[in-house]
């Protein structure tokens, strides 16, 4: 059997795929955080809870309404994103004029409420969400076994990232958003409806989190606490990459996933902590972050 640095090839590639899939989630979530941060200047602490709501909506929609996976992949981000817009319109807007740390605190409180409520309704043990039939099984690539669903998650997440990049960099709405990020008051003076733009942006970021949640549902146990611990890792990823660039967020997310996966192969004890250690290293060597513009 082929060995890579003393580890069987199949194990190595398996962990690499796992890492890439995790990285795809880091990328999607940090991308959503970056989009929201760009225009609203707040860190959305409810992002993990909204990701978890995405997974739960898929699970409950299937259980009670018979909504299948593919429909959920479209509907759930729209519904959760819509809820996000309501949240922005009625709560976040009221504190938009204050120090942006208040936005962090408000969304933190909301995350506690959402998570606590679901813990009471569904308990902390995770539920299983069936993988759709077409995506079951796997491909034997000769040097490794690739589960179809993981391959699909990678493709779907990257496609969504690319779509987001296209929306922001290549469309008129995206141009508005970029301009609003630079100077929203000037945009408003030019007659652009900035408050509406802000609401849509927040909804879009939340929708990204919900999309990630639906993707994650067949992969991980669906539980109320699945989002919060993931979010803290995503925060570290955001600190490493900086929130300045979209491609930067995607690359950092995938890169950190790979590093985490490889750590699981060679030094499993540090798998939980390696991303935080990378963050410390980046803070020492390049305090603004790998792709960051400001400190």
């Amino acid at each position, binding site marked *: 059997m082929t060995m890579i640095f003393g580890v069987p090839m199949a194990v190595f590639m398996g962990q690499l795929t796992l890492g890439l899939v995790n990285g795809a989630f880091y990328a999607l979530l940090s991308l959503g955080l970056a989009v929201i941060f760009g225009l609203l200047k707040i860190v959305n602490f409810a992002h993990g809870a909204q990701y978890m709501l995405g997974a739960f909506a898929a699970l409950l929609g299937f259980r009670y309404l018979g909504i299948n996976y593919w429909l959920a992949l479209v509907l759930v981000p729209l519904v959760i994103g819509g809820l996000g817009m309501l949240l922005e319109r009625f709560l976040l807007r009221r504190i938009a004029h204050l120090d942006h740390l208040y936005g962090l*605190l408000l969304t933190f409180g909301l995350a506690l409420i959402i998570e*606590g409520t679901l813990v009471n309704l569904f308990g902390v043990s995770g539920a299983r969400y069936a993988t759709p039939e077409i995506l079951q099984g796997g491909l034997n690539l000769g040097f490794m076994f690739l589960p179809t669903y993981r391959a699909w998650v990678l493709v779907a997440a990257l496609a969504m990232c690319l779509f987001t990049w296209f929306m922001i960099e290549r469309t008129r709405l995206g141009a508005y958003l970029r301009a609003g990020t630079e100077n929203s008051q000037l945009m408003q003076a030019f007659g652009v409806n900035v408050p509406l733009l802000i609401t849509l942006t927040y909804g879009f970021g939340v929708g990204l989190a919900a999309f990630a949640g639906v993707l994650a549902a067949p992969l991980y146990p669906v539980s109320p606490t699945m989002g919060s611990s993931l979010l803290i890792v995503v925060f570290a990823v955001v600190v490493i990459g900086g929130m300045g660039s979209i491609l930067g967020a995607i690359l950092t997310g995938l890169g950190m996933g790979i590093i985490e996966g490889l750590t699981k192969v060679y030094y499993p*004890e540090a798998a939980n902590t390696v991303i935080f250690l990378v963050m410390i290293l980046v803070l020492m060597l390049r305090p603004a972050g790998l792709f960051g513009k400001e*400190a």
Partner: protein
Amino acid sequence: MPASTLLKAPTAVAQRQRRANLRRNAFYIALIGVGLVAPFIAYPVFLMKILCFALFACAFNLLLGYAGLLSFGHAAFLATGGYATGYLLASYPGLTPELGILAGTLMATLLGVLFGVLSIRRQGIYFAMVTLALAQLMFFVFIQAPFTGGEDGLHGVPRGELFGVISLRSNLAMYYFVFVIFLLGYALIQRTVHSPFGQVLKAIRENEPRAISLGYNVDAYKLVAFVISAGLAGLAGSTKTVVFQLASLTDAHWHMSGEVILMTLLGGVGTLLGPLMGAGLVVSLQHLLAQSPLGNWVSVILGAIFVVCVLSFRSGIIGELGAIYRKNFK
């Protein structure tokens, strides 16, 4: 302008200042009096819990309220103090509790230097995220380290004899020891806030670029504030471990970092008494809810208080009371 009025004006100011000082001292003496008789009215262990968390919140408030730095990782210092003290007291039976607490505080202070150097490299929202991530790193360290008891935590930490003489087994003796620790911690914070150092901190909070342009080494000031805050949070954690004779992962969890923010916010950010009040309220609320049918909803209720505080109660209870007082009585 005649010379007499020139001389007179400062005297009037000084007189008002003296009266304000007198009022404040009287208030503190009354508060200490309440603290002294409290264990005869309420359950001492409950009061000790409040005092430990109040010290924790006061330490946190030094950073948020006076330096304008929102740390989302203060649980790391509470837990480090607690684990270090717990491990030392459990492994070396000869060690007296005050030395154990001192060692725990020292460990937390050292960790504060480390985390402080790293996190003050970023500002605002990034600072919050960095501290949160560093605290999560410590959480995983505490889960995996051989000396923390993993998921179970450390149990049966002996309270021992204070200075090798006074047994702390009785809750009353323990209470007065904790009360003295709290007063010392509070006095240190009070002195820091009202010192020239504290004034510079406030200047940095209000306008950092300006403080830099005035020639202050802003990073050094922030670091010192961070380290004092971390050390006092560690002192709170160490003391808590001796009181409850256990150290557990609850103290290291990010929920704990959130709770201390809530205590400070509810009582009043940037007020000296706010965190004390907030800690008392939150601990009492948790205590009441734990016995009621709403016991499982604690985190939802805390989250709701968070939202209400941020939306419409940002100066907290002490802050609002202070505003009413200034409006009507001055």
